[in-house]
């Protein structure tokens, strides 16, 4: 276990009866990092988050928060966590100020700090104007912000957000994302979502979870840098026949599209740009586009998650 990490999860598993919701997940979260938790519906994201926040006890494995064991010293460990579940846990008959004050109290903030903590949380989440309104009368987006304010009120070291942008309009989504990014500079943030662009915009680190297991875990910049092309998109003014392209050494497969567009699949380690250019010049094909395509996060996501399912159906058959 790394001592400097905010969260250290070791071999976490959780069963619902015989159904394994999460099996053997391990990861760490460092300070100042936004960790994106990706996965298709029902992959075990929410179960994992509930375990990290102490709402569910894991069947196996251990969770340390700021070095404190969540099982043994639940109270101390939970003081370092702010959690926004999928449905914000609101008392709708309360006003925003009352609710946030109550949240500050149950998180054991000292009395003299409560007012300033409430003000800070409201300011960060853009709630200054609605402090005296009843939560029930606020729009969904504002309710979501109140939920977020609740999670950060005691400025915890770790903020866990379960699908924080679901059901919001595009402007609200942008605002919430900015808030999350800002929070990520001072706190560690775990963000679960199934919206891929959201991860690209807000996260530093990506984890993909499928059917209860962690199948991908890497920093986002590594994903972009060390990910060589395995396909090349090209377009010609005077396209040749497919056979000519197929004969270029290193090309495995050619897809042809309208308007003289082709997609050449090749091995990751071969670069075919030179051969294409010389071919275009020799045959006077009028090359207008040449784009090496590397795997995007979306492709990785689809490969990993759908690959798992197909191998599973094979096993079943």
């Amino acid at each position, binding site marked *: 276990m790394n001592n400097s990490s905010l969260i250290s999860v070791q071999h976490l598993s959780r069963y*619902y009866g015989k159904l394994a919701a999460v099996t053997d997940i391990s990861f760490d979260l460092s300070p100042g990092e936004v960790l994106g938790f990706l996965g298709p519906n029902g992959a075990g994201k929410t179960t994992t988050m509930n375990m990290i926040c102490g*709402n569910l*006890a894991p*069947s196996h494995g251990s969770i340390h928060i700021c070095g404190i064991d969540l099982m043994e010293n639940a109270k101390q460990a939970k*003081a370092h*966590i702010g959690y926004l579940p999928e449905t914000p*846990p*609101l008392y709708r*008959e*309360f006003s925003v100020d009352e609710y946030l004050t109550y949240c500050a109290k149950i998180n054991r903030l000292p009395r003299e700090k409560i007012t300033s903590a409430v003000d800070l949380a409201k300011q960060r989440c853009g709630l200054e104007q609605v402090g005296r309104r009843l939560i029930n009368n606020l729009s969904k987006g504002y309710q979501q912000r109140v939920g977020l304010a609740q999670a950060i009120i005691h400025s915890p070291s770790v903020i866990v957000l379960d699908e924080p942008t679901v059901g919001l309009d595009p402007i609200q989504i942008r605002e919430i994302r900015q808030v999350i990014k800002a929070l990520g500079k001072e706190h560690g943030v775990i963000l679960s979502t199934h919206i891929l662009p959201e991860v690209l915009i807000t996260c530093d680190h990506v984890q993909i979870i499928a059917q209860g297991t962690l199948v991908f875990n890497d920093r986002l910049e590594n994903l972009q840098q060390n990910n060589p092309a395995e396909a090349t998109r090209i377009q010609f003014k005077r396209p040749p026949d497919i056979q000519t392209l197929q004969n270029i050494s290193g090309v495995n497969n050619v897809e042809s599209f309208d308007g003289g567009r082709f997609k050449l699949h090749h091995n990751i380690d071969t670069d075919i740009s030179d051969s294409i250019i010389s071919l275009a010049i020799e045959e006077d094909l009028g090359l207008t586009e040449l784009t090496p395509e590397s795997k995007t996060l979306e492709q990785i996501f689809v490969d990993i998650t759908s690959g798992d399912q197909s191998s599973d159906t094979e096993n079943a058959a």
Partner: protein
Amino acid sequence: MVFTLALRELRSLFLSPLAWTILAVTQFILAYLFLTQLNEYILLQPQIKMLANPPGATQLIVSPLYGSAAFIMMMIVPLLTMRLISEERNNKSLSLLLSAPLSMSEIVIGKFLGVTGFLVIMTFLISLMPLSLLLAGPLDLGHFSIMALGLLLLLFSFAAVGLYMSSLTTQPIVAAVSTFGVLLLLWIIDWAGNKAGDENTSAVLSSLSILRHFEAMSRGIFNSSDFIYYLLFITTFIVLSIRRLDSERLAR
């Protein structure tokens, strides 16, 4: 910390029309009963005075009033307790408490104290009626305070059952109905013993009956066994609720 939780619970009760309606309706019905009882007492007063050892106003007016209050509250308390945990579960707001640095006991006891606060307010309002008799004449204040204590203990026991039932389900109505069922059963459980005529069964069943222990107190007799019965009753159901919530967190 438990008081923060209790105050929140109490405030939520008073922010909904339910608490106000309950207070108004019970107060109205009990006031009606109180006035009927008072009227009867005034009519009978000349005859009562002829008796060698005449019963006082406390026995003839206040005792029946508290008896009726106990019965009415058996139907009302389930409505107050039904939402305690089940509604939070339904609204998904329970995770606010579960992720906060609180122990399960604090959460449950806080909720129990919240309802308790409401029941104290209610008992106080009911007690104002007999206390108004002090303007006209003396009351047996010793008897009166034991009755008030008895009613409070009885209501707290009702609330403890309600809390536990609420921890079992996600639907408040289910919690209310089952609480009422359990309370009614405990209320009438000694009937079977009386009918059977078997002394041992009868003794066991009547010592289980939640009403029997209240009857002695409403006669102005304070038995420590009654007091202990109520304390054990309340503790048992609070512990059961805590265990229930804890087990929900663990593997099902």
